[in-house]
């Protein structure tokens, strides 16, 4: 087969192979050069984007702080953020009881527990939420005493919700007498803490 090849063809073949090899080498080198430059360009772009994002984030944080700072500080002062102010709650109950002459108000409070609702982790990042359950056992002349007490508790340091309440007339007679009613209510007191704070305490 090869003996049929004329020198001219062999020369042409040699030239072709040489050109092909040289071309492949040159093109490969140029591709490598281009790829390297492209990678470096991407890296440089990422660098720019990183700093842009950092600045944007800072601007955003700044706006958030501007928007929320005063309300946040109010929460801190109200004892919603940070440690619980249980004393304030008890004092408020005592004051109201005394002021309204309520015959009997028994109250107890459970140990504070962290709330692990999924929506909290998803929607409110950066904070841990705790709840203390308060049980109220009240004897009163009428239901107004209960609502006065609950209303006064709103001014105490903290944030609460009423989970359930049982209000009952002690006597079924239609005419009101003293100690006519009793109520058992369960309240939840909420406090927030920065999740990054050491030992989960402090704001």
């Amino acid at each position: 087969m090869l003996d049929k090849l004329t020198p001219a063809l062999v020369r042409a073949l040699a030239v072709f192979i040489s050109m092909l090899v040289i071309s492949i080498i040159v093109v490969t080198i140029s591709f490598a050069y281009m790829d390297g430059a492209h990678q470096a360009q991407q890296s440089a772009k990422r660098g720019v984007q990183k700093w842009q994002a950092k600045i944007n984030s800072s601007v955003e944080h700044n706006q958030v702080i501007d928007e929320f700072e005063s309300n946040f500080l109010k929460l801190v002062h109200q004892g919603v953020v940070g440690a619980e102010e249980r004393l304030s709650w008890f004092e408020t109950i005592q004051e109201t009881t005394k002021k309204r002459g309520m015959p009997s108000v028994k109250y107890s409070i459970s140990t504070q527990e962290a709330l692990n609702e999924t929506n909290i982790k998803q929607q409110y990042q950066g904070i841990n939420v705790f709840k203390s359950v308060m049980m109220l056992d009240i004897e009163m002349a009428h239901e107004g005493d209960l609502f006065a007490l609950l209303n006064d508790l709103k001014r105490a340091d903290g944030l609460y919700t009423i989970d359930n309440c049982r209000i009952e007339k002690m006597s079924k007679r239609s005419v009101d007498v003293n100690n006519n009613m009793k109520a058992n209510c369960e309240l939840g007191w909420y406090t927030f803490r920065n999740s990054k704070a050491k030992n989960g305490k402090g704001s």
Partner: protein
Amino acid sequence: MRRLFYFTGYRLSVLHWKGKQLVGSSSFEPTESGLDKFRHYLIETKNIPGKFLVDVIEEDFRMEKIPHVGSKDRASVINRLEDRHYRSSQDYCYNEIIGREKTDRKDDIVLLGAMTNPQLIQPWITTLDECKVPLSGIWTLPLISKKLLKTIKATSGVVLLVSQQVSSNVRQTLFRDCKLISSRQSIINQSMTDISGIGELAAPEVNRTIEFLRAQNLVASTEIIDLHILGSDEQLVSLEQAFKPDEYLTVTIHPIAEIKDKLSLSGIGSQFSDGIFAWLCLDQTFLGSHYGKRHLFNRYYNKLAATALYATSLLVVIASVLMTEANISVAMESEKSIVLSKQAEKNYKDLYSKRFKDFEGVFENAGVMSSAVELAERIKINSATSPLDFMIALSNVLSKENIGTVYIDKIEWKAVNIDERTKQLKKANFTGKLAVKHDAVITGRIVESEDDYRASMDQMNTIIDYLRADSRIEKVEALIMPVDLRSESKFSTESGVDVKHQKKGNESIGIFSLKILMKEPDHA
């Protein structure tokens, strides 16, 4: 520049063409000195590829019928035929299927052709090979002359083409619908200097040929033969006198000069038609060689391949240069972009350091602040769902005038959510977005009319209807009714004068219990 080696049976002419112009020619005698001169000529001139055209008397054409079989078998049959008829001309045989019978077995009709004395051209071929001339093929003039039929408008019917390439011969080639059927060359005794009397010399030969063709049944006795004669201007009178048309013969004489003009050829003589056929041979590009073993033309194919390789090499180089250039351009653009990006990065860094760096610690708390404020707001909104809210809404309904006197003795209230998936009530999550609703069981009394159960039922139904009609109340369910006459309930009572006295002041009658599901307060 193109080169044609034209062998006329005795001497070899070399014709150099540039486009359609014959720019030079040399002739070599078949003697030792002639061959030496030819060799010398080949060595001295540029070694360009060449074609070899033969026009010899020692050439035979015949038609054979072979069974219509596959290509492999057909090749085998044709090989056997060639071996039978032209054993000594094996490398100089030609075959072509020119048609198929229309009746019987519908055999293929094959044209066989051969140089019966190939030794005539062997010295020339050997010399060409020695001088490494790339020969592209060996063609035979009768087959090439087919290309002239279009020019002389003789593309259909039975055509007998008569031409003279040298003074001593007349070539007569028969075509049927442009397909070569037969060809023969006749020797005539014509003077080298005076060719005007060709008619008298050629006519007997042509007549003999026609008789032979009709005798061989290659042309039917009643079939018209279109005789086309090529002649120089000085031969026209003689040809017109010698060839007269008859019932079965038409005669057309084509002046060589006219054909030359039609083909736009220049530099060729007008005495004979050798120049025309030489050009027709050179003009075909893809027609394969009629004669000769393939290895004879290896040098030419090698040259073609080499040219193709050089062209491909050039293309490869151009492509690689373009790709490299493109890559480098892209890379340089990237480099520029990198410089700009670095500058931009530095600017951003400086800006950050100047304006924000010192507040990094504060910014970390931004998320905490927004989360705390938003969550507190959410809890406050949800905490509006309280017993007080429930009782206010309830008293708004129960204080309607036509409801009558109702005492509420007990309220068991709790805050609930309705599970989106199961639609079941569950303990309220005050941190969530789901509405916190009231779920309460109220127990109370109505003042029953004496023995008037219907009035009691009406009052309860009125209470329930009013509750249901309230926009905030979603669901009301009667758990206990003062007069429960529902099919699913048990009910017992008594009546009489004594009983009536006992009933007065009895607080355990007229008791009802309702379960109410109420919407959250309107936060707007």
